[in-house]
């Protein structure tokens, strides 16, 4: 190789390296929301710097995961299906067992969880303080260095912006746009409120009320996650979980706290006759005592209603 060629090679390498470096530089955030979004996507908050919040809360799936159980640092498996990070602004409890009461409390727990991001918060804070970009950003936005409180606030404020208000269902109800949803979805909505009785638990702006219910997915043998009881220590909470919100449900499979159902149809089949799937549940809610006896058409109608709760931004993509 001639000296000239070597010179070109070094120049090209330097150019590629510099381009790559500057290409990844984030624009300076001006608000807590913008800062939270950068932090949400940055693996700096995991022990091995390979996992970010967005690794499991994937934007294209309404900030949920398609895996039954998401993988944390060093490919460690969690024990519960990743819930969506969307539509949390009006929620009063977080996680399947409701162990956090505010979004700020929620935001820090996965960072410290050994099977998720596995990074003690004091270490995370030190990392952010040692990082010029974050040090400047926190100082500009909060007038102070990164700390536990403002880290939680930034992440929580970003998550509060992830709301779904533009669905075919809302268009139908708010604007009386009869063409926004299919006739099947309209029948599904009637079933939801009537024969299928879903509305007894799934109501409110995000269709999940604020309660914890035992839907029969705890039998003490194969299904051993005791849910809410882990937090409250009350035997009456055995097998209870937070009622799942339904907005964007069509794109957040798999379903339930353990991700045991792969499709909406499987979920509907379960509620139609729970005993067929889990024969000996412990403390199953009396609302599910009898089979619903839904016809195949009714099941399809219910599914089409649930699909109508999908944010239009995802319907366009799909």
């Amino acid at each position: 190789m001639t000296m000239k060629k070597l010179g070109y090679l070094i120049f090209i390498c330097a150019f590629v390296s510099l381009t790559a470096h500057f290409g990844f530089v984030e624009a300076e955030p001006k608000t807590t929301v913008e800062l939270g979004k950068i932090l949400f996507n940055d693996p700096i908050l995991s022990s091995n710097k390979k996992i970010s919040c967005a690794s499991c809360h994937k934007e294209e799936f309404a900030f949920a995961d398609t895996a039954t159980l998401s993988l944390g640092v060093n490919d460690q498996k969690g024990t519960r299906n990743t819930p969506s990070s969307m539509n949390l602004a009006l929620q009063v409890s977080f996680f399947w067992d409701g162990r956090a009461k505010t979004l700020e409390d929620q935001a820090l727990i996965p960072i410290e969880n050994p099977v998720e991001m596995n990074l003690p918060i004091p270490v995370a804070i030190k990392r952010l303080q040692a990082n010029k970009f974050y040090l400047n950003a926190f100082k500009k936005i909060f007038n102070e260095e990164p700390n536990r409180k403002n880290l939680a606030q930034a992440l929580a404020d970003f998550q509060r912006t992830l709301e779904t208000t533009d669905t075919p269902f809302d268009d139908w109800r708010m604007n009386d746009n009869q063409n926004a949803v299919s006739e099947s979805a309209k029948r599904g909505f009637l079933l939801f409120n009537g024969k299928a009785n879903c509305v007894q638990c799934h109501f409110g702006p995000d269709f999940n009320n604020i309660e914890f219910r035992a839907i029969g997915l705890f039998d003490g043998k194969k299904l051993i996650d005791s849910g809410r009881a882990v937090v409250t220590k009350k035997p009456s909470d055995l097998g209870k979980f937070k009622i799942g919100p339904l907005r964007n449900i069509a794109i957040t499979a798999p379903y339930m706290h353990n991700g045991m159902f792969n499709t909406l149809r499987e979920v509907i089949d379960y509620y139609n006759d729970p005993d067929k799937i889990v024969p000996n549940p412990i403390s199953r809610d009396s609302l599910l005592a009898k089979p619903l006896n839904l016809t195949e058409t009714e099941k399809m109608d219910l599914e089409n209603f649930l699909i109508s709760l999908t944010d239009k931004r995802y319907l366009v993509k799909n």
Partner: protein
Amino acid sequence: MKKKLAFIAIVLAICSFKLIDEPNPLLGKWESKTVYKEGPLSILLLFRADGTYDGFANKKTFVNGTYHVSKDTIFIADPICNSKYNGKYKLTIFGERDSVKFDVISDTCKARVAGANGFTFKRVK
């Protein structure tokens, strides 16, 4: 003949009374703005002519049901509480008929009482 005329007059009077009966004052959209968990919360109610209504929280549908108005009273039902049971609320319409307040008369549904009783909504123009 006189009796017939009197009868017709009475029938006409009844019909005309019905015809000039006040239109439903709630038709359309009403909004109440408040703060929830340190963030803005807009509750919007949409009352339709077919006797159905929907409620929206920050543009998200959160309740729907049926209603009817008789004089200054609204009878309202939804499937969350019980679609066959009507809660009864006194309506106070004030200002330039652009504000309405709901005061419970009788309602066994605690959640609805908590969400409606004493609340004032402004007509959305």
